[in-house]
C-alpha cells in the first residue's frame, strides 16, 4: 500500500518553542491521511491547507507526498508554531507557506482549497481558556464540549473548499462527532468516520467531509 512520507523533526526545538508536541492525535491524523491516499491521488489537489499545524509535521508530510504538485499552506495563531512549521518543512526540503492568522480569516474565500486538514484544540475546558489562555493553552483548549474553535470554522467551509474539496478533522468523543456530522450536513457536506483510536484518556477519531451530491448538482 502507498505510504505517506514520514518527515524528520526536531523534538527539542518543538518543546523549547512552546509548540504542541506531536502526539497520539497527530499520528492518528497522519495514519488517516495515509489510509485515504487513494482518494487524495484521485483528487490531485492543487491547494492544500492545514489550520493549526503546530510542529508542522502533518503539512510537511503532505508536502513531501505532493512534491511540487500542490501548493501547501499552513495557518496558525501561535507565532512559534509558524516558525517551527517553517523550520520543519525546510529540514525536509519542501516548501510550505506559513501564515499567522485565525482559522481562514485573511484568506480569500473563493472555493479554492482542495484539501483542508485541522487537528483543532479539542479538549473540554472553561471557555475563558479558548480566548484568554497562553498560546500553548490555546493549542488544546476547546471550551464548551471542546467545540468552540472548530465550530467557528464550519460556517466558512462551503465558501472555502473547492467542488471536490475534502476536510479531514480530528475530534474526540466529547466533541460529539455525530452532532458535528449533522451540523455539517446542514452546510452541504457529508461526513464519515475514517479512523478511530482509543488512547489513555481519549477516544480519538478522524472525520472526513466532502460536498454531498445534491450540493454538487446545484
Amino acid at each position, binding site marked *: 500500500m502507498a505510504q505517506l512520507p514520514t518527515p524528520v523533526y526536531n523534538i527539542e526545538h518543538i518543546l523549547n518553542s512552546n509548540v504542541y508536541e506531536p502526539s497520539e492525535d497527530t499520528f492518528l491524523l497522519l495514519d488517516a491521511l495515509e489510509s485515504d491516499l487513494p482518494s487524495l491521488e484521485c483528487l*490531485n489537489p*492543487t*491547494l492544500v491547507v492545514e489550520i493549526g499545524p503546530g510542529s508542522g509535521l502533518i503539512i510537511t508530510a503532505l508536502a513531501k507526498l505532493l512534491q*511540487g*504538485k*500542490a*501548493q501547501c*499552506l499552513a495557518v496558525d*495563531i501561535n*507565532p512559534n508554531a*509558524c*516558525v517551527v512549521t*517553517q523550520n520543519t518543512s525546510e529540514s525536509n526540503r519542501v*516548501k510550505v*507557506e*506559513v*501564515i*499567522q*492568522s*485565525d482559522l481562514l*480569516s*485573511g*484568506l*480569500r474565500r473563493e472555493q*479554492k482549497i482542495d484539501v483542508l486538514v485541522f487537528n483543532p484544540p479539542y479538549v473540554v475546558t472553561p471557555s475563558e481558556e479558548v480566548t484568554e489562555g497562553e498560546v500553548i493553552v490555546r493549542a488544546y483548549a476547546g471550551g464548551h464540549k471542546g467545540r468552540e474553535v472548530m465550530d467557528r470554522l464550519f460556517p466558512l467551509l462551503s465558501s472555502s473548499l473547492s467542488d471536490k474539496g475534502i476536510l479531514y478533522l480530528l475530534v474526540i468523543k466529547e466533541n460529539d462527532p455525530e452532532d458535528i456530522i449533522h451540523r455539517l450536513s446542514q452546510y452541504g457536506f457529508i461526513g464519515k468516520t475514517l479512523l478511530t483510536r482509543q488512547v489513555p484518556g481519549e477516544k480519538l477519531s478522524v472525520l472526513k467531509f466532502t460536498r454531498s451530491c445534491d450540493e454538487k448538482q446545484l
Partner: protein
Amino acid sequence: MLLLTHNMLTSNCIKGVSNGYPLIIKATSIKKLESDFNPEFLIRMIPKLDWSAFYKATLMLGDAEISIPEKLIDSYEKDSEFLKKVHHALLEVEVVEGDLECPESGRKFPISSGIPNMLLKEDEI
C-alpha cells in the same frame, strides 16, 4: 511569502473594509528561490489565481526579472516560455521582510522571516 500566497490574502476581515484586495506589498527584503518547474501544476493553479492581483503584485516588487503580461494569454497551456515566467514570479520570489498594507484602511500586516502576520485585534473585527 510567495506571490502565490499574496494572491490569496485579503484584509476584508477588518471591520469596515469591503474589498481589501490586493494587499499592497512593501518589501524591504526579497530572496530568490529555485524550485522545479512543473507546468502541469501551473496549468491547474493559474485558473485559481486572480490574474490582475498577480500582475499588480509583480509591479509592486519592481524587479525586471519578474515580468508577466497584464492579461492572461489564451492557450497558455502550450506556451512554455509564458509558463516559465509565471513559475518564476509565482514560486521563486520570496518576500522575506516587509509589510502588507490594506488598500482601504492602510492597516499594516508585518512580514517577518517570510511569515505574514494577519492576526487582528479584537476591536478590528
